[in-house]
């Protein structure tokens, strides 16, 4: 009989060792160690099968392929779709090559992104914002026109801003796997690719609203929430209800006493584990519909926590310090310093000073 116990393999990421079951991707192994070594991911989404390998945000350097074949991999590999091998050594944040490559990835992702964050409803919880902020450079070298599309309605509750789309395919996989029949996908190829509904079919599946949560940028947004409030002014609260269609575990976003938005709960990596139905999302916007569990756990450095916690609790974001450290320049202080002041003693000023205070110095 075959041994069905999972075979454990040893992977080293940024010098930290972890034991994972065989078949785990490098990215998943890194996430097991913790957020300090986990590569960022724009397209990979654990609950959706088949995602990953599109955005190249999670590129890592493999310095030793495996125990049996310790040669390094010739190129940087996408950690979300590369399986970890026994004895593999991976460099993520410790490799300057990876950090440099990620700057390039940010630049590519932002080539056609309109940077209309002040208008976009996703601002504040946008993965692309976080990604470019932490891994990108400040400027752009792109001078050509960005591609533009008209904004489109997918059903009466979802708004598609194709301009903002980074073609991560997450929503397509959601439609494929959560809904029974897919009515939207990616049309055309290359630079012309766009997310579209086939013949503008409205999505009337009960779980179609989850595309909003799954979208890492502001391409798919909730029409009922459109321009209602900025994310950081609303107060997120975990709540649940008895729903016959879904788990009923959601986050309510309050403005004062009013629920302005209902979303699914996201985990540490910004992924929704339990999808919620459209009834919960769009139709239950009264506090009386829900049992409130307590405030949502927000990362302290997130803008969502702005003005909600006392100063002592707020952990200052590390990128400012990182940026300062990057741009730190040693002060040029190799000027010869003559302790005997021989040069100064030659000057007329010094002599005059000494003559003036002769009494004092003679003591």
């Amino acid at each position: 009989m075959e041994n069905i116990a999972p075979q454990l393999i040893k992977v080293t990421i940024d010098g930290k060792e972890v034991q994972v079951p065989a078949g785990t991707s490098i990215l998943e192994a890194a996430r097991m160690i913790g957020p300090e070594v986990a590569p960022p991911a724009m397209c990979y989404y654990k609950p959706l099968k088949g995602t990953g390998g599109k955005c190249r945000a999670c590129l890592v350097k493999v310095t030793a392929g495996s125990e049996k074949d310790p040669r390094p991999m010739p190129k940087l590999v996408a950690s979300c779709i590369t399986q970890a091998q026994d004895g593999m050594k991976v460099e993520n944040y410790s490799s300057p090559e990876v950090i440099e490559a990620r700057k390039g990835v940010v630049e590519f992702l932002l080539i056609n992104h309109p940077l209309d964050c002040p208008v976009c409803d996703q601002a504040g919880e946008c993965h692309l914002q976080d990604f470019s902020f932490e891994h990108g450079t400040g400027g752009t070298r792109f001078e050509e026109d960005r591609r533009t599309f008209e904004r489109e309605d997918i059903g009466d509750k979802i708004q598609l801003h194709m301009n903002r789309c980074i073609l991560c395919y997450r929503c397509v996989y959601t439609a494929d796997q959560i809904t029974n029949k897919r009515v939207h996908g990616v049309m055309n190829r290359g630079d012309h690719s766009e997310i579209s509904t086939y013949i503008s079919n409205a999505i009337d599946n009960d779980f179609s609203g989850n595309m909003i949560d799954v979208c890492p940028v502001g391409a798919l947004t909730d029409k009922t929430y459109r321009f209602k409030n900025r994310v950081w002014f609303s107060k997120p609260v975990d709540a649940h209800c008895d729903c016959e269609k879904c788990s009923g575990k959601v986050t309510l976003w309050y403005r004062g006493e009013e629920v302005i938005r209902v979303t699914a709960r996201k985990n540490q990596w910004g992924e929704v584990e339990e999808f919620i139905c459209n009834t919960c999302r769009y139709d239950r916007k009264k506090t009386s519909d829900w049992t409130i569990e307590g405030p949502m756990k927000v990362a302290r450095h997130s803008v969502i926590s702005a003005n909600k916690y006392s100063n002592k609790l707020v952990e200052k974001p590390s990128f400012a310090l990182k940026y300062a450290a990057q741009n730190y320049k040693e002060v040029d202080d190799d000027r010869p310093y003559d302790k005997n002041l021989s040069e100064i003693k030659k000057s007329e000023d010094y002599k005059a000073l000494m003559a003036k205070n002769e009494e004092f110095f003679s003591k």
Partner: protein
Amino acid sequence: MQLTDRSKKTDKSEMTLLETLYLPEIARGMGITLKHFFMKKPTIRYPEQKRYLGPVFRGHHILKRDEQGRERCTACGLCAVACPAEAISMVAAERVKGEEHLYREEKYAAAYEINMLRCIFCGLCEEACPKEAVYLRHDKFVPVFTSREQVIYGKDQLVEDMNDRYERDAWTKEEMQKLWDKQK
């Protein structure tokens, strides 16, 4: 007890003949007074005349319009989140067709309020604004008020008047630096 070296010793010696005559000294004193009539005055007539406070003085807020008269503010809320006194609040609205000449972006501030009682004129809103919409005027103070209702400034008091546009000698720190260098 002598506190400073600057105190003048009173001259208590006998007056000379010229001094006892008294009138010449009066004339000398009047001369000094008369001289001051023709000297440059260090004071100004304040409410009518105003001193230039420099290009970076931070006073009354203004919501700028662009060259075509459209409001620049897109109600992104960055000024409000940057505000240490939490003086700013706003409500966003979507621009509808036919309003393109009023608002520059597809979203605009339907209401924009600054509580001048809370405002500390630190200028962080100006610094946070990604659309170069909110500025603190260098030429205008927030006037005195007599009731609390007057202190909450709405869009009617904040948005720039196209007939009386707000111009500044220097909009950025770099421009200001050049200006200072020129004055030196």
